[in-house]
């Protein structure tokens, strides 16, 4: 959607001012109320009109501030106990093509380009693969590499072995509701512990 379309879409809508938009964002970031009229419940709590809540949230979904609105599932709770961040070193002139390829694969749940941090970090393409166990993730990865002819790219597979915190993105200074969640994730029977890191302290510039 381009800017002109966005502007056109705001016409005739009961959008909120900036302060109330921030309040609404805070109010929904941990979820909608489970009442028959959840948007009205929010409106009453915030002292605004239901139509303003509806129009503002609709506008956010159309303008892609909200990527999706719905049930946010904790994969782990449904038996998806293994997840690997698979990172790839792809030449700059090919990274868009490979990124698009990966994003088309059903098993890939995230796919981002990020900067390299040489000499510590050579990988510029990040993807996430979830599975019920480690072997399922590795099988899916092997299929994906074969089907898309990705064997020529240097890659690394970073399985998670412990979850210290997982909750929604909080941009509006709200509290994280699951801040103390911590779970062992070693389920596959293999040793999940990585060798002692050889770098004790890493100084890496950020930007």
């Amino acid at each position, binding site marked *: 959607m381009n800017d002109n379309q966005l502007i056109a879409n705001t016409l005739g809508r009961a959008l909120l001012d900036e302060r109330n938009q921030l309040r609404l964002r805070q109010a*929904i*970031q*941990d979820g*909608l109320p*489970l009442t*028959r*009229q959840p*948007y009205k419940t929010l409106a009453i709590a915030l002292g605004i009109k*239901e139509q303003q809540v*509806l129009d503002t949230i*609709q506008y956010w979904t159309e303008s892609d*501030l*909200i*990527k*999706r*609105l*719905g*049930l*946010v*599932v904790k*994969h782990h709770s449904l038996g*998806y106990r293994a997840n690997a*961040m698979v990172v790839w070193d792809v030449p700059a002139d090919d990274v868009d093509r490979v990124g698009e390829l*990966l*994003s088309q694969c*059903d098993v*890939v*749940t995230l*796919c*981002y*380009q*990020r900067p390299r*941090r040489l000499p*510590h*970090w050579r990988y510029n393409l990040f993807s996430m693969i979830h599975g*019920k166990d480690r072997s399922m993730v590795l099988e899916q990865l092997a299929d994906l590499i074969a089907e898309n002819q990705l064997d020529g790219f240097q890659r*690394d597979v*970073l*399985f*998670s*072995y*412990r979850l*210290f*915190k*997982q*909750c*929604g*993105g909080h941009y*509006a200074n709200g*509290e*994280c509701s*699951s801040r103390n969640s911590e779970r062992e994730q070693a389920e596959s029977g293999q040793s999940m*512990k*990585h060798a002692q*890191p*050889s770098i*004790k*302290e*890493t100084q890496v510039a*950020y930007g």
Partner: protein
Amino acid sequence: MEVLDQRLIDEYQKGLPVSSRPYLDMAKRLNVTEDDILESLDRLTKSGVLSRVGPVFNHKKAGASILAAMAVPDEKMKDIAGRVNAFDGVNHNYAREHEFNLWFVVTAPDQAQLENTITAIEDACGYGVMSLPMVKSYYLDLGFKIQWNQ
């Protein structure tokens, strides 16, 4: 898990109605009652299957966010992870198998506050943070297809 719970997860990871009675609209489509929907969502939330029924914000547009990594000695992992978790802006934090073994996402309302938070995390932990901002997203988040009973 009840059939309705599975159907809701299959059908409504995206596209929750923005209407006066969203749960009634969902009920009509799935041929159940509004109360069935509310009970199912309540059950799924309380049992920890769902983290919420609500929005997934676009990190890039909703504020500033960054993927960050640290290389931490194994014996200090738990302590350092706790220090990182103490920051409100941290919303994912995993130990992963790599020299860089602690991976977390930091969010903030804007870039300046994000950089302040990263500096504060480095000070609190005593280790450098490798920051990996998103350059480009190739993935459209439509939820995740669950393979039931496999």
